[in-house]
């Protein structure tokens, strides 16, 4: 089996190399979609740890994204301490963790739907705060985000000028690699966490709180810790989003954003890092692509013609909503489950003795409640 042992790392390296290619072949539009997708994936992995693994429903993810984004902008910005941008980014992530920690009296005690709606409060109170505290947040119009600088290398269009293999590296290209690096960090820390003692404890907590407590899991502590970790991933995603948008406005961090993140992890398949990533790319990229290419779809009116036809933005929304419904109707365990079923079907059948458990997989579409980490 020694050749199989090298298969996975080799595949990972190959994938990483492929992901380094886009800046050389795709224009800024595609890179921006990719960048938003990567940022969303980082946030979605965080939410997946909380909701998928620990079983805590959260609708407050947009708030922690906002803490990260605004935290970075304020810490590095002019009304604010004006710290070195790299330090500000790290502190913003920690700040999001602290915000999650402050919520722990609620997060540690509430469960299920109650926690979900309680976190809803975070989004609305946070949005109110963003609008009101305009000396820090810039109020309704938001603030522009200072670009990140790492040791003299700026993630901007021309600081310093950089051309790699004949391709001029602007802000998008540079941020793409930053996003990839951060996503790699997220991927490995999240998978490591899931497969370690705390990850097992959280999964035990989800499956049965009482049983977990009897086994020695400190219920309130682990629940709060899951919340803190998830908020930190959200904070990191917030920083990256702020850098990609170059401007933060309160209205972006609305309930709709929280709901989008929830949709990401369920579409991807709960409790799986790879699933959360796939869901994030799907939910982020689909509306952007639809809006761009909707005018080539049938039945879509060109924008500006006021004849009651369906505009491209609306067509994108219709398709997005319908896609959520259709995916979940036919793959209730999300894209991750779908991929696993397809793989199980494609795999050449091994010896008949092993076949029985494997062959039942394609015919069992129900969600497996006690599914463990990917």
């Amino acid at each position, binding site marked *: 089996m020694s050749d199989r042992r090298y298969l996975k790392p080799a595949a990972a390296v190959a994938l990483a190399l492929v992901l380094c290619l886009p800046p050389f072949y795709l224009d800024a539009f595609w890179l921006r979609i990719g960048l938003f997708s990567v940022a969303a994936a980082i946030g979605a992995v965080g939410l997946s740890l909380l909701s998928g693994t620990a079983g805590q429903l959260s609708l407050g993810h947009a708030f922690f994204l906002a803490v990260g984004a605004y935290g970075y902008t304020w810490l590095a910005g002019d009304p604010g301490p004006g710290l070195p941008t790299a330090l500000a980014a790290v502190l913003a992530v920690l700040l999001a963790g602290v915000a999650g920690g402050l919520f722990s009296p609620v997060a540690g005690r509430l469960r299920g*739907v*109650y926690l979900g709606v309680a976190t809803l409060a975070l989004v609305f109170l946070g949005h109110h705060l963003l609008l009101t505290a305009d000396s820090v947040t810039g109020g309704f119009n938001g603030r522009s985000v200072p670009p990140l600088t790492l040791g003299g290398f700026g993630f901007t269009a021309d600081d310093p000028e950089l051309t790699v293999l004949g391709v001029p590296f602007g802000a998008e290209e540079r941020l793409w690699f930053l996003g990839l690096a951060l996503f790699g960090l997220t991927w490995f820390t999240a998978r490591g966490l899931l497969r370690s003692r705390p990850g097992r404890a959280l999964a035990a907590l989800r499956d049965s709180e009482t049983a977990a407590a009897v086994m020695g899991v400190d219920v309130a502590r682990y629940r709060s810790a899951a919340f803190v970790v998830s908020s930190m991933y959200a904070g990191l995603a917030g920083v990256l989003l702020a850098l990609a948008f170059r401007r933060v406005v309160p209205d972006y961090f609305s309930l709709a954003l929280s709901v989008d993140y929830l949709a990401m992890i*369920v579409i991807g398949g709960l409790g799986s890092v790879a699933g959360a990533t796939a869901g994030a790319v799907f939910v982020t990229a689909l509306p952007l692509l639809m809006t761009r290419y909707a005018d080539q779809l049938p039945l879509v009116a060109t924008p500006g013609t006021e004849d009651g036809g369906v505009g491209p933005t609306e067509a994108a929304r219709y398709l997005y909503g319908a896609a959520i419904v259709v995916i979940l109707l036919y793959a209730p365990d999300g894209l991750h489950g779908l991929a696993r079923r397809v793989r199980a079907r494609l795999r050449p059948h091994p010896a008949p003795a092993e076949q029985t458990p494997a062959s039942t997989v394609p015919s069992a579409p129900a969600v497996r409640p006690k599914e463990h980490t990917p």
Partner: protein
Amino acid sequence: MTSLLDDLLNGLALGAVYALVALGFVVIFKASGVINFAQGSLLLFGGYLTAVLHDDLGFAGALAVAVLATALLAGALDRLLLQRGEPDPRMAHVQTIVTIGVDIVLLTDLSRRIGGDLLSLGDPWGDSVVTLGSVTVADSRLAAIAVSAVAIAAVFALFRFTPWGLSLRAAAEDTEAAALMGVRLSRVRMLAWCLAGALAALAAVFLAAFPAPGLERTTGQIALKAFPAAILGGMASPPGALAGSLLIGLTEALVAGHQSDLHVLGEGFGDVAPYAVMVLVLLVRPTGLFGAKGAARV
């Protein structure tokens, strides 16, 4: 600065309307374990139908059609999209997300039709007011309180005295035992969704009536405020939803009425005060005011 009595009456009217929506959340949650994110767009759908039809059918006729149509839509939504295969309580979270997808589609379509318009529902109260002693109240607010009270009483009577109500309570208590006793879970569920749809359509009328300018595409977002109302009382408890709604309505009206004294909290704090109240209540009682503690068995 308004008088306390004004605020209380406004709060009561607001709470009565929230109660209609919150009751819808609770009924659906009790019957299917799903949080219905599409409640807001169902509400908008009911309001839109009333607005479009009231010229031809008159207000009462239009409202009746709208309530019926919204009930059917909600029922169909549950039957065709959510209830697929064997009923399985573990599927509730997936079905919750499906309602998000449905909400996006419905809301997009209704927003497109409504556009930037303010639609009048043609309700009979107009902008008339009555003066009771020192207090001036809009007729529509009194009507909201009266109609909601009747509707809520009717719903409670349904729970208490009809075979469906008994089935619903049994199914909420223990799904498996209820099914073994011959309760048709899928039908109980579908009727619960129908009821929630009807309540949402009814609530739309009062949300669009004076002093609100009319039905706009954002009217459905009010349903979000019924979330804290439903949770405050305990998600599976109809009387709790009622108490929670009144608490939320009164809080919002009182905070909005005393805006000038509370300016430290920022402009428009009345809109978010319900959420602050909810978090405080949940800190003390994690399962809501009327929520069951529930024994855990391993």
